């Protein structure tokens, strides 16, 4: 029995993704929100790599590469924004950040 079956990776990736989602939903600290988003991104990265191997095709790796790239950019801008918000409101609690109220 080969445990490194692709199904197992699917379970793993999905679980990881859902953990990230749970984190996004329950935490209030915006930084942790961002981290949980990283978790979800990583889950998808993992699956991309899995599929790449499955099909013997390196395109998946390229996508992971780009995904990381975007994640890096996102984090840098996101963190800058968080710093800005923190300076302005002295809080990074997402429950209080409702200035976009319609």
């Amino acid at each position, binding site marked *: 029995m080969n445990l490194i079956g692709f199904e197992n990776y699917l379970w793993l990736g999905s679980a990881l993704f859902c953990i990230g*989602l749970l984190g*996004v*939903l329950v935490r*209030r600290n915006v930084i942790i929100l961002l981290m949980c988003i990283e978790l979800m991104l990583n889950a998808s990265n993992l699956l991309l790599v899995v599929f790449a191997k499955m099909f013997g095709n390196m395109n998946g790796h390229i996508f992971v590469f780009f995904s990381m790239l975007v994640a890096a950019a996102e984090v840098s801008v996101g963190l800058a924004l968080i710093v800005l918000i923190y300076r302005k409101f002295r809080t990074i609690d*997402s*429950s209080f*950040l*409702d*200035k*976009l*109220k*319609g």
Partner: protein
Amino acid sequence: MILAKILILSPIIGFLINLIGGKKLGKVSGIIGTAAVFISFICALLMYRKVVSTGAYDVPLFTWMHISTIHIGFNLWVDELSTWMMLIITGIGTLIHIYSIGYMSHDKGIGRFFAYLNLFIFSMLMLVLGGNFIMLFIGWEGVGLCSYLLIGFWFKNVDYGHAARKAFIMNRIGDLGLLLGIFLCIQTFGTINFNEINSIAAEDLALKASGQLGLFQPYIYTAITLCLFIGAMGKSAQLPLYTWLPDAMAGPTPVSALIHAATMVTAGIYLVVRNAALFELAPFTLDFILVIGMATSILGALIGLFQNDIKKVLAYSTVSQLGLMFVALGVGAYTSAMFHLTTHAFFKALLFLGAGSVIHAMSGEQNILSMGGLKNKIKLTHLTFAIGTLAIIGAPLMSGFFSKDEILEKLYNHSLIIWGFALASAAITIIYMVRVYTLTFSGKFRGTKEQEDHLHESPSSMTLPLIILAILSIFGGVLNLPHLIGGGSSQKMGLWLSKINSLKAIPAHVSHLSHSMEIMLMLIATVLVVILGSLSYFKYNKQTDAELNQPRLGFSLWGEHKFYVDELYHNLFVKPLEALADFFFYYIEHCFIQPITFGSSRIAYSVGQLLRIIQNGNIEYYLVYLSIGAVLVLSLSMFVF
């Protein structure tokens, strides 16, 4: 042909000259206006001769409108009836124009006045000469318009304006009836030409007389004639549309004489006579006319009994006399009605002009309680007014005697009760006319000192028409003497008129009364006049000032307030209409239509408000929505794909 054109165009040219010339013409305008009408009168006389020699003829001018199968020509129909009316209109019109030269000489708007009068003569001629309903309608509305203009002649007075508007609108109610009648005619007969309609009706009458089914159902005729009669009601001031006529006395007195006594108000009679064949086919309408006419006659006379304004009394008297004419029409005595129309035109014009002369002498005073004893001051006016009074109360051998007697005779023939009512109406007429005469001319003067000093006889331009009209009032009866006096061929006017299409179609009412019965009826009338006349003369002659001025009670108070009909109408029609207008504007417009408009925007707004709750600006909620959405899409994809 050319005569008819001149006849029509002459007043309109006079109108245009006077209107455009305006104030520049000054007193010349009176002469121009009079000349215009006089030319028409000459034409009318010449046309009369032509009709005598060659019979009726048609004058087509141009096509006014041609719609599918209906041809509406602008054509004049000159026959015995229209010639007769034409003569009355232009004849009396000329006299009243002459009178107006004197009467209006002090007024600044004299040019405008004569312009309107000429326009009126034009419209009235259109009315009686029109060969089809539309031409008649044009004249019909035209005279209404002129009446409006002339009642409101002194336009600075708001009350006069109200009276004018009331007259126009009440006339319009009648006009609507007439218009609907015209539509019904078009729908039923496919034509609105009088001659064609009359020939259809004549055919139908003949068929029905011979026991056959006829061309059209009786109810169609009833509907048409009722609609036409509503028109006549408005124009001829019959119950319930009579209240405008007394108010119309706001206009200058010559106007009251010409329009509101002699000519315009008789248009209703003319309309019925013109379409007598149709009315003959609708017995219900005839009965209706009879009832309305009788009620109007008595009501008008009763109100006249309690009025103190000399012109108001005469106005109610006109209403009453018109009612009597309609009663005659109701029993099918068309020529009798026309006869009374003619004599009435003479003596009522005379009375109005006499009243105008009195008012002129009294410097505008119209209340008879402030007059009295004018007998010796203005002799000519007194004389002619007395002749007019005698004529209207039907003193023997005056014109009114013959015409009224003829109607009473026909009524007696028809039904005793109707005759009784008519006699009662005539009796009241005697009382109030003698009252007016007595209070105005005999006794002692009750006016102010200033007025007494100012008393003077009117200028000759005013007294000349009075004299002519007085002569006509005395001898007008010659036109249509009863059998008793003149024998079989004496009823010249009846014979003359019976040649017109609509009356030709009607089988003659044969049953004449016996001579003894006729003499009986005449005697009754004479006795009535003598007894009531002298009684009321002495009663009113002896009345002291205190008696005159004491406040009225009970029935006479009601009479003085015209039985509160105006107030009734005001509460019954005007106020609800105003309330309806306000209801439309403030409720339907603001609470119903606008909410539909704003409602749609409000719905969008409130939906937005509802969705706003979701859009609370908190990122967590958005995330939850997003996740739920994702879950839903995934699960749905399971089932769908």
